[in-house]
């Protein structure tokens, strides 16, 4: 049986989220598979064109409906479940979008979901982290039922552009509920790179001591063109907003370069940066566990080191 994989696109109405191209990469690793992308939107024209340009995509299905303006799981899931007919696999990114929608799709299709695929071993065999990444499970799922999965986006590179897949209108033809209503979204529009997809990230911890002191983290980040992150301790102390938290209960990221500044390196934080290419740790405590996992460590006072570093970087 050859695999037919449907990837559910994540987007904001005008721009395709890079998580989609990463989920496509995961899908292309399924042996003998063909990969289609489905875009649900009020007006899908811009996003569908971006999806069609991803290399390896066979076709893009477009479901346009005013009800699809916001990505409400209760509205999206029945449509995805309907369109899943004829597909052997349905993948979504393991972002807050995919984590919301995909398990609802799985339940409608009568299967449990494979959460956070980090590696594909076969058409029905996958690796995924359990216990906050402290163990890796290889799981084999039945071949006689659809496979619904989320893809751990830190584990896959984005599929490159260069495709020119045909775009087809689709009609899910299902009744949609009105019991869930979008009110508002508030968030960081900082002009800085997005933490989840940035290639460089500078994170600060409790040692920063105050929200005001965090400005030296922002200054270094701006010098490097990096996104800003934080440890859970720094978030809990109110130095920075929640959406900057890196770690098991925050964002799991995989930048090329990660600066952990004044962060001790609790397991819960390290889980979020396991796949970072190079970790630089700056901490005044030479015994901090962060130095066990850092590629480059520097012991010292961050308030002295950071301005120096900023200067040295020109």
């Amino acid at each position, binding site marked *: 049986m050859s695999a037919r994989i449907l990837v559910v696109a994540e987007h904001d109405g005008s721009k395709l989220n890079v998580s989609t191209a990463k989920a496509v990469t995961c899908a292309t690793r399924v042996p003998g598979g063909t990969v289609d992308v489905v875009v649900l939107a009020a007006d899908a024209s811009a996003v569908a064109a971006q999806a069609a340009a991803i290399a390896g995509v066979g076709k893009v299905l477009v479901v346009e409906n005013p009800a699809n303006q916001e990505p409400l799981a209760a509205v999206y899931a029945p449509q995805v479940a309907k369109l899943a007919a004829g597909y052997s696999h349905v993948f979504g990114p393991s972002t807050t979008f995919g984590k919301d929608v995909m*398990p609802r799709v799985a339940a409608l299709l009568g299967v449990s979901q494979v959460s956070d695929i980090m590696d594909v071993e076969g058409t029905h065999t996958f690796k995924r982290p359990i*216990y906050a990444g402290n163990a890796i499970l290889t799981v084999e799922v039945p071949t006689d039922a659809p496979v619904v999965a989320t893809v751990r986006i830190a584990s896959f590179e984005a599929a490159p552009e260069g495709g020119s897949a045909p775009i087809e209108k689709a009609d899910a033809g299902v009744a949609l509920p009105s019991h869930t209503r979008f009110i508002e979204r508030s968030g960081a529009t900082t002009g800085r790179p997005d933490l989840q997809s940035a290639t460089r990230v500078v994170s600060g911890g409790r040692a920063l001591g105050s929200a005001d002191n965090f400005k030296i983290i922002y200054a270094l980040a701006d010098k490097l063109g990096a996104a800003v992150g934080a440890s859970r301790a720094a978030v809990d102390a109110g130095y920075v907003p929640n959406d900057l938290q890196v770690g098991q209960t925050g964002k799991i990221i995989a930048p090329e370069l990660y600066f952990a500044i004044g962060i001790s390196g609790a397991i819960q934080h390290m889980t979020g940066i396991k796949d970072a290419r190079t970790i630089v740790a700056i901490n005044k405590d030479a015994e901090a566990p962060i130095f066990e996992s850092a590629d480059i460590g520097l012991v010292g006072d961050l308030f002295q080191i950071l301005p120096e570093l900023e200067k040295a970087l020109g």
Partner: protein
Amino acid sequence: MRRIMVGVKRVVDYNVRIRVKPDNTGVITDGVKMSINPFDEIALEEALRTKEKGLADEVLAVSIGPADTQQQLRTALAMGADRAILVQTDANLPPLSVAKVLQKIAEAEQPFMVLLGKQAIDEDNGQTAQMLAALLDRPQAVSCSKLEVTDGKARVTREVDTGLETLEIDLPAVLSVDLRLNEPRYVKLPDIMKAKKKPLDVKALGDFGVAEGSTFKTVKVEPPPARSKGIMVKDVAELVGALKQKGLV
């Protein structure tokens, strides 16, 4: 009766350092401290606060697990839950089976709100709330960091990758809670004594028409690849040098 149902999973305590079994069949849980899944504790706390505000009459704690799970349900009762149900099984049920059991209980108990943790910290599936909402054909709100219950509706703020999202959902609904919704209360000794008298019903999994076990097969469980220890530099100049050498700046 305005009832809130809360899911309580027995998991390896979050402070325990996880070790993989030498035969790669799972992680070591023998002799390891077990606790209520921390996210479920937050769900329970929110249910109790909702009741304390006069917006609910009863908090029902539900768990699925081995006989020892009674310990976690007693803790839930000591925190303030009014009664508890244990669906007893030694099988490790997959999320869809858990959701099906919870569906049956919800249909019998008719809660106006089901509160669950956003994920259990053992298998990190993060599926049960969404699946239960789908099976009940009701609204879901995942990763809630703020909850306001008004007449027949709830206004919920969810933590999403881009910040915060606010939804209005009709009740009944299924909600999963995130870390920052509240800080769970500590249990006091008199409450532990009182909890011993609260009702805890034990039911058999067979009563729910849900199969034991899973169609998902564990091939193996391995420790994650270790990161190799890096280098220490003595000052900023060396740090910049090392970064340049790696072509990172």
